[in-house]
């Protein structure tokens, strides 16, 4: 294995890991607060990618309805990102309001919530298929792709942006959860659900905030995914989302640091397996490795075992 080859795959793995990490964070946030495996989250990512597609196509004047003028790309990019995050967050919050909260308030068993989440995932996925058809969509070019070649390594500017932006966003998220009042309330809920309302914090608001955070992260991942691999398909949420979920678990579900690390571990495993073996072995080996990690450390890398008092 040459060094060039290694660095090339390293960069690819960083990019792929970034997507997984950003989506995994959404799983982990909701799990930490609600103890709910939000199986719809992968499809929120899909919604993010498609929303980004529509907004991006519209703003770059490639849509059926045209703007009377062309927008410069320094307007288009931030506008696309912000609008997409906003709309996707609305979808996430809507699911919580329509389905999860009523069920929670009626004291339904936790697993019924999980099933409802699964159903919402299917609803989004096949809703997309039914509305937009099975044909793939081409994500618009929000900016020009530049390819840098250094020795045997090729790096696109997109990869660099994706990696840097993910790190920036995860840093901000880390700060929100660790330092702000809302973040502290989120962590408090995951420790003690009953005490939090006693402290004058509205649990419903914190849950809403959690869904906003998680969904907008997924939206961002969706846009970046669309920019990096410009083909969108209705079942992308399932294919990428489930893997991100597993990544969250390997990191220790409920732990944000764990979700990030888990995302990169899964990304690295998959890319490097694909680099050496036929790519059909990618999932097989990646998931076996993950199971091995879990067999050795059942709570995940950064998870804390819950001790019940006897």
């Amino acid at each position: 294995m040459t060094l060039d080859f290694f660095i090339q795959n390293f960069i690819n793995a960083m990019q792929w890991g970034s997507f997984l990490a950003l989506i995994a964070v959404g799983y982990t946030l909701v799990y930490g607060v609600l103890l709910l495996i939000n199986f719809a989250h992968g499809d929120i990512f899909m919604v993010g990618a498609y929303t980004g597609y529509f907004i991006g196509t519209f703003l770059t004047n490639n849509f059926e309805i045209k703007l009377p003028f062309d927008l410069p790309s320094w307007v288009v990019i931030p506008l696309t990102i912000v609008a997409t995050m906003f709309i996707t967050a609305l979808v996430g919050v809507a699911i919580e309001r329509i389905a999860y909260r009523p069920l929670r308030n009626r004291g339904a068993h936790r697993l019924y919530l999980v099933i409802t989440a699964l159903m919402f995932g299917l609803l989004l996925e096949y809703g997309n298929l039914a509305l937009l058809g099975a044909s793939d969509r081409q994500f618009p070019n929000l900016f020009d792709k530049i390819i840098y070649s250094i020795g045997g390594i090729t790096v696109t500017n997109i990869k660099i942006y994706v990696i840097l932006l993910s790190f920036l966003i995860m840093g901000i998220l880390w700060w929100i959860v660790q330092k702000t009042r809302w973040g502290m309330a989120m962590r408090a809920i995951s420790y003690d659900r009953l005490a939090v309302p006693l402290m004058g914090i509205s649990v419903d608001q914190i849950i809403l905030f959690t869904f906003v955070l998680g969904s907008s992260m997924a939206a961002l991942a969706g846009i970046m995914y669309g920019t990096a691999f410009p083909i969108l398909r209705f079942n992308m949420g399932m294919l990428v989302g489930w893997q991100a979920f597993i990544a969250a678990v390997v990191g220790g579900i409920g732990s944000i640091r764990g979700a990030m690390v888990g995302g990169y571990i899964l990304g690295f495993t998959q890319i490097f397996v694909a680099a050496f073996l036929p790519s059909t072995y990618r999932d097989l080996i990646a998931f076996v490795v993950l199971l091995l990690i879990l067999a050795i450390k059942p709570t995940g890398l950064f998870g804390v075992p819950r001790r019940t008092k006897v």
Partner: protein
Amino acid sequence: MKRFGMPTLIGISFLFCIVPSWLGWFSNYIQFIITLIGINIILTVSLNLINGYMGEFSVGHAAFMGVGAYTSSLLTVYLLTENPFFGKAILPEELSILIFPISLLIGGVAAALFSLLIAIPSFRTRGDYLAIVTLAVNFIFKSAIENIDAIGGPRGFMGMGKVVKAMDNLVSFPWLIFWTFLVVVFSIFIIRNFVNSTMGKSIVAIRDDEIASELMTVNTRWLKIVAFMLSCGLAGVAGGLHAHTVTFINPSSYFILQSTYILVMVYLGGMGSLSGSVISAIVFTILLELLRPLDVWRWVATPLLLIILMLFRPTGIMGSRELLDVFPKLKKYFSSLQERLTNAFIKS
């Protein structure tokens, strides 16, 4: 009075399912649906053991079903038919009637052994650990089969139609419905016996309070593994039936979507209710067929209907009750051994 209980019920359903199919009153399509309902009943009832009674969360039932499907169809196709995968048949066609049930059984055993591999590390800790592992099992199964080119890989495997045909040529009889029916009765019989015995009911105690169970001498680890293997073994048998019913299988048939459907049927029926499972398997299968004209929108309508149902009935159709609790008069005929014993003591 007791002798009018279970045997009568089984006899009546036998009359209504198999005899009309035999006499040719049911079209092939209806026979296909009846078989599918039976298979779904087996899958739902068996998964209910883990997700309902035991309160764990397995999302990989389709993978175990797939292990059974591939094992049994490989066996029958390899032994009985000339096919592009293995060449000439090894045994004469006439043996198909015998080989088919044996292959189902072997499929079930294979699935149970595969589940043991999963169960040993999974039940060390509680919580959603099993959910995660079984989710990964879906991917592993699909990916593993896709990488075995000798059995068709992602393109799938076929030839089971010939086996079914061979059985029919020999003795004209709805063999698939017959075996499905037998397995349905068998599954319900053993799971009902299990959860109504002191040994089996302990899994409900585990769901309720695992630490208390362990301290009250229940061997929780062993019991969980046994229940899991039992459940997955039945799923394997159902997989064998499924493979021979649809006659063409590929790894995607036993992926997350299929697992999700089984889950939905379990929770639709109610956690820990066998009659609920049976009802929901019937309702769900028929619903999917009725919605067929909707084409793609069927896959939108189904989850939507289920979400609405969950909102209005957040414990499923039956909750944890059985039909007997809804119709107490029937208790005279169908009550479990434990109930009878308890009642006998209270009266004396």
